[in-house]
């Protein structure tokens, strides 16, 4: 029932993007999120599109994973496209429907905005598709550490994130088991009257909560028992390593930014 959920979206294949340090990927994504907005005319959009296609190809992640990521924003893309198509009065009139004149400029703007939103979503999913969640949290912790002097509990936040991520598969397994146990007793999670479905949901959620609280308690006890006292002076099992390829990746992203800045209309 829950078997098709991919945790944290990570796709375990080997590719140049998978090998990069999570920090260089985080920096690149941040930079690209700004760079995407530099594009404002045909050639710069083409360059942007080429960059996205190149990165997707480099990631060696099957295309359907990106399609899955795009699906939730599909409506947003269509909506903004239509908005631009109907309400931009630039260029020449292509045709008229329902009293609206559709201008060539409108279609052009619509396509541009669609590319812009699409690129952002694809670039963001590239990060999660090619980076293990646990590496991602390590990366986050690295960037949050400077804010510690302002009282930001960087280590605790990262710990919370990694514990949550670590427990997602466990929780899913638990959920699957409880669902199946109740389904074996006749529970139907998809059909039925409001009242029976409410009871079915209760029979699923209550045991799941009970188990989660129990597990959290056990974990706290286990951490206490091993003398866990927070992040001060702790070393890491897996140390993030910044290599040449990471520097290159950042330079490439910077290059894309420069190219787009040159190509764009001022």
């Amino acid at each position: 029932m829950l078997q098709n959920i991919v945790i944290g979206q990570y796709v375990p294949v080997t590719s140049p993007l998978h090998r990069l340090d999570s920090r260089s990927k985080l920096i690149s994504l941040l930079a690209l999120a700004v760079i995407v907005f530099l594009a404002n005319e045909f050639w710069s959009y083409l360059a942007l599109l080429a960059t996205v296609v190149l990165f997707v190809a480099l990631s060696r992640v099957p295309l359907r994973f990106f399609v899955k990521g795009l699906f939730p924003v599909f409506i947003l893309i269509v909506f903004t496209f239509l908005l631009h198509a109907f309400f931009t009065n630039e260029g020449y009139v292509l045709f008229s429907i329902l009293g609206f004149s559709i201008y060539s400029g409108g279609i052009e703007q619509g396509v541009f905005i669609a590319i812009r939103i699409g690129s952002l979503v694809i670039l963001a999913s590239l990060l999660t598709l090619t980076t293990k969640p646990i590496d991602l949290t390590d990366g986050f912790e690295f960037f949050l550490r400077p804010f510690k002097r302002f009282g930001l509990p960087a280590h605790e936040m990262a710990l919370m994130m990694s514990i949550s991520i670590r427990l997602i598969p466990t929780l899913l397994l638990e959920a699957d088991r409880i669902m199946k146990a109740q389904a074996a007793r006749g529970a139907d999670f998809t059909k039925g009257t409001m009242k029976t479905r409410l009871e079915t949901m209760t029979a699923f959620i209550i045991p799941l909560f009970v188990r989660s609280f129990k597990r959290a308690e056990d974990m706290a006890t286990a951490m206490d028992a091993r003398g866990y006292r927070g992040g001060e002076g702790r070393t890491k099992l897996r140390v993030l390593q910044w290599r040449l390829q990471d520097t290159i990746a950042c330079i490439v992203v910077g290059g894309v930014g420069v190219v787009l800045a040159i190509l764009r209309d001022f």
Partner: protein
Amino acid sequence: MRITFRDVSYTYMIGSPFEKKALDAVNLTLSSQTFTGVVGSTGSGKSTLMQLINGLLLPTTGQVQNGDFILHRKSKRKYVKQVRRQVGMVFQYPEHQLFGSTVEEDMLFGPKHLGLDIEKSRQRFPDLLELVGLGEEILPYSPFSLSGGQMRRVAIAGVLATHPKVLILDEPAAGLDPAGHRALLDLLRDWHDQHGLTTVLVTHDMEDAARYADEIVVMDEGKPVISGAPTDVFRQADQLAGLGLDVPASVRVSRAMQAAGWEVADTLLEPEALAGVVIDQLSTVRKEG
């Protein structure tokens, strides 16, 4: 009810990078009214096999026949539910499925959702609770106020409340103390005998399989590799060892005794039986000596 697997394969997460074939063209028949032990190491496909019986999973290819019901890849939801009315399933740590605010509410969940007569089911509760070693005074209590052992008994009573014709047990006694372990399996075996059930016990405890099962099926890498009566299965100790499985202690002891020149049959599956033979032999030795 007779359960037949015909060319059943099952693949998890088909079409993803995590694709995993759990069962591979399984052909297997579990005769009506037998108590079958399914053993195998972790990942051998035994829990997948068990979930195919009541349609929690539908076969990727092939079909599973359950009495007159046939389940296949495209079986309809309503049809699957009819099958579930016949099949009770006790998962590992069944107490994790408890949710009701009272024991009674929890036990009514099965009968209610499988569309059984609620009043009739309710009348059977006192007997059912007595069978699992509890009393009817427990009905108005919250299941979460009970002890771990009691919770498990309530959960099992909740499964038996639907009076299934087929009972699937997945390590029902895991985590209980030895006395509780024996008591629970004894009562499930009694229930099996009294009601003429077809029972499948999934376990990796060979002692349990030897003691309670009429038939044993050994799974390995998604296929049943050895099956038959417990004495026949445990005679193949070397082959079982190759699959990472043990034989019951009494079989190990009798084999060692045979090797040392004692006259012991290798069909003694229970420690009590073996002990009897050892005593007999020792007393003859003493008489002769």
